[in-house]
């Protein structure tokens, strides 16, 4: 077993959503200063990697980008996701024991279908990593633990019907913060019930709460699930100085969390306390990953007197933890027909709002309740009456009849001529098809 930690630091000093947007060049400037001044890259056991550029296929394997991958991503996105893949390869080859992609732009609000930018995200770096590892190395079970203050609705959406990917998120209660989701009853679809777990937290909670959630919920669930790999969506906006949220976690708290979770790969997500939080939180995470002492890391304005949790909130969190734990333990004994009905296909409608780009998307999602595999998925998506799309996805371990039906769906939609774009993701064969109705051109990518 190697004892090295791989680090990719990609601050994208020449990329911003806009000049004054929180996702701007300055975001990791002070983190750079702190990491460089501490001499982190010189520490024994730290290996600095340079990011590579993802292939379009790596993205098409996960996302239906409309109208095309090219139109939805900038080079910075390809590099940020490429950084995650680079570390994924290094972990799989045994070069490193774990890795941290300290990159921007972030990705955990990007869903399966991408019409534009949501919550500063276009493509989902962790999801791209998960599906890359599954197709390249044949990994089966992977867990993603999301420690960003915002619910990772994109990651949840991508793996909602996938029983092999466990998604656990703790975050500030969706009633008080973007994106307004991530409640305890969001537990996965009928084919993957229980492999999505959400722990909404009342605003103002401190390190003790993060500790409690990790020790009494996240770790026991992971122990049960036995993933082959653990990925951490390492958002840092639970920090007390974050300007966009209201939690009270500290850098030491993040260090302890990382030390306990022991993720194989951490990927930076949000965190906009660019001076008060990021330099210290990133330092603590890196030290915890490498196994160095992080107890000397502290924020200049940290005053322990200001970090007391309200008793009623502590009880409230305790109840949530117990509820989720019970749901997880009973997940195989629950009558799914009661929740999802008894139709052969489970269908749901969704409205999705893209806050950055002001787009309203309407979706109808359909999953086959297959008894031989996790079932193929279809999505019909439209924006007003402008764009209409049909997407179909074949999961990694799909059965023959799901594969056939998915291809039938793709060719039928193509022939119908009423969709502007038609997509097929065949994860079983690692092939993606894309049809543009107006030009009648079909494109093809493969891994």
């Amino acid at each position, binding site marked *: 077993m190697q004892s090295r930690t791989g680090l990719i630091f990609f601050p*994208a000093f*020449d990329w911003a959503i806009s000049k004054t947007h929180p996702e701007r060049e300055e975001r990791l400037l002070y983190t750079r200063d702190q990491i460089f001044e501490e001499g982190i890259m010189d520490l024994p056991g730290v290996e600095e990697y340079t990011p590579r550029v993802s292939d379009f296929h790596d993205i098409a394997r996960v996302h239906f980008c409309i109208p095309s991958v090219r139109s939805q991503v900038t080079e910075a996105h390809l590099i940020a996701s490429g950084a995650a893949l680079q570390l994924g390869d290094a972990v799989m080859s045994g070069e490193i024991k774990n890795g941290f992609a300290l990159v921007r732009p972030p990705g955990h609000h990007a869903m399966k279908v991408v019409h534009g930018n949501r919550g500063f995200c276009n493509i989902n770096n962790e999801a791209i990593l998960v599906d890359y590892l599954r197709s390249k190395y044949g990994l089966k079970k992977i867990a993603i633990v999301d420690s960003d203050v915002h619910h990772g609705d994109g990651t949840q959406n991508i793996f909602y019907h996938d029983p092999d990917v466990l998604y656990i998120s703790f975050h500030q209660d969706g009633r008080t913060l973007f994106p307004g989701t991530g409640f305890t009853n969001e537990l996965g679809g009928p084919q993957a019930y229980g492999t999505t777990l959400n722990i909404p937290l009342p605003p103002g909670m401190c390190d003790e709460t993060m500790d409690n959630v990790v020790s009494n919920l996240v770790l026991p669930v992971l122990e049960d699930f036995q993933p082959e790999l653990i990925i951490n969506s390492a958002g840092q906006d639970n920090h007390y100085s974050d300007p966009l949220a209201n939690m009270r976690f500290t850098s030491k708290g993040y260090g302890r969390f990382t030390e306990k979770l022991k993720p194989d790969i951490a990927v930076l997500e949000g965190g906009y306390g660019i001076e008060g939080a990021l330099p210290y939180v990133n330092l603590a995470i890196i030290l915890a990953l490498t196994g160095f002492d992080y107890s000397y*890391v502290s924020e200049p304005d940290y005053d322990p007197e200001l970090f007391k949790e309200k008793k009623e909130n502590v009880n409230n969190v305790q109840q949530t933890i117990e509820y989720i734990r019970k749901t997880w333990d009973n997940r195989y004994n629950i009558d799914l027909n009661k929740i999802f009905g008894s139709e052969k296909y489970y269908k749901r409608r969704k409205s999705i709002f893209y806050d950055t780009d002001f787009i309203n998307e309407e979706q109808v999602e359909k999953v086959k309740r297959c008894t031989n595999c996790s079932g193929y998925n279809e999505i019909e998506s439209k924006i007003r009456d402008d764009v209409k799309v049909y997407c179909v996805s074949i999961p990694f371990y799909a059965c023959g009849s799901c594969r056939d039906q998915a291809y039938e769906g793709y060719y039928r939609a193509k022939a119908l001529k009423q969709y502007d774009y038609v997509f097929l993701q065949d994860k079983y064969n690692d092939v993606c098809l894309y049809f543009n109705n107006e030009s009648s051109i079909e494109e093809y990518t493969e891994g």
Partner: protein
Amino acid sequence: MYIGIDVGGTFTDAVLLDNDGVRATAKVATRDDLLSSLLDVLDKVMDNISGHKIKRVVLSTTMITNLILENKYDPVGLILIPGPGVSHNNFMYNADTKIISGAIDYRGREIAPLKKNEIAEVANDLAEKKYKKAAVIGKFSPRNKSHEVEVAKILEEFYPGWNIELGHRVTGQLNYPRRIISTMLTCASKEKYKYFINSVLNALEKRDIDASVFMLKADGGTVPIKNSADGPVETIFSGPAASTVGVQALTSAGETEVVVDIGGTTTDLALILNGQPLISSQGASIKNYITHVRTLSVRSVAVGGDSKIECSGEQIVVCPRREGQPYCLGGPSPTPTDALRFLGLTELGDKSKAEKAMEMIGGITGRSSEEAAEKVKDLVVDTITREIQDMFYKWEQEPAYRVWEVLQRSKEKPNIVIGVGGGAAGFIKQIAFRLDASPLIPQYAPVANAIGAAVSMPILQVTLRADTEQGYYSIEEEGLQYKIKDQKFSEGEAVDLACEFLDKKANANSFNMGQNEIEVIRRETFNMVRGFVTTGKIYDICVQTPRKLLGRFGEKGGGK
């Protein structure tokens, strides 16, 4: 005419050059009496030429490197102001280390004050232990020097006459552990280095040489010898830089080449990419400590002409150590040199002994002598070729922090493999063949180091970082910090200011810079936004003089 001198641990080499090329070369043993070695080598190379005709002298030396390697420096007390961050237990150095209160953050703001009584205690303690040298280094001192300066003031009050070195004066670059090492070594070696400088100036005076005198630095640039006294650590590893620049001068411009210096026990590799020596992204490291010293990217491989060869069963292994001379030169056991002698690739040593050596290897491993010699040669060529390929790979993997840097990444491969050093002749052809490049052994390869010293020019850099919200700017290389008077200080003004500093620096270094020759390496502006309002800007500007050589004496594909 100009002179290059390389003062190595064993030999002192010199060359005399003029605009037409090499006029004379000389090699003498380096003796303890530095002055006499210098006079000796000067006399040999000048051969009755008047000292007044010499316009420029450049020296390179391994003296400081050797001092450090052999622990022959004065003890230095370390006073550190690390503040929060990495554990203080990480600061374990081969020196008395005192950690005091106080902290500065990344923007130069004080986050914890100094405690005066603590400083007094530390000073008394060091004085009791008979220290007379102290290095004071604070985290983020390049962003705010006030803590370091304050500590120095208190130390001077209590113990006037101590040698005190401050971190921000030694380097303005971020990297606290490297700054600690560099400052400590600077403090430790200053006096010894002055002895070196005095010997040099004395020798030149005795031979009527009134030329300008420079020292070579690890990055292949030069610095006037008097200015170099402030930063002796800059001269560590100027040896490999000298040979690399020498090779650069002996080959044609713009080539991508690999320099292979095969010695007795080690082989040194350096890359020249499109005519420029590759600078290491890490500082020079010594005794497992990394300093901030900018250095050429040089790799040492533990294989050479005298490497011991071991056999077990059919296996032949070239060991990473030397047991003595090659067998054909009267040594105890077979070496790669014996294989070369056997194959007729070198004239060195006794042919019949080389035959005996290959017979020994062949006998144990079930090969003919011919096969054994070929196998040994292949093993050495394999090792060196692999290391060269890995160097190119590592270069491609250098970190990048900007989108354009990742996108413009290109693959390079060497066109020419250049051999210098004793063992080069036998191996260079094969190595070049493996790399699909042409081999070249320049005529003056044995004194490439001294030639490199002679033709080196200053490489001057100025990095200006301005923080308009905090209202100050700093010049990294000089450890200077100034106030910004005008709140509206613009990026253009910042670049102009950096160029002004570079100009001043060029003058101080007797470097005539042509008009418009300044290269802007980096100009970045970070908008500081607080609560949706732009509150200031951070500029990061880096300007540099072009990298030049005083002369070139090479042609493509062959030495002159």
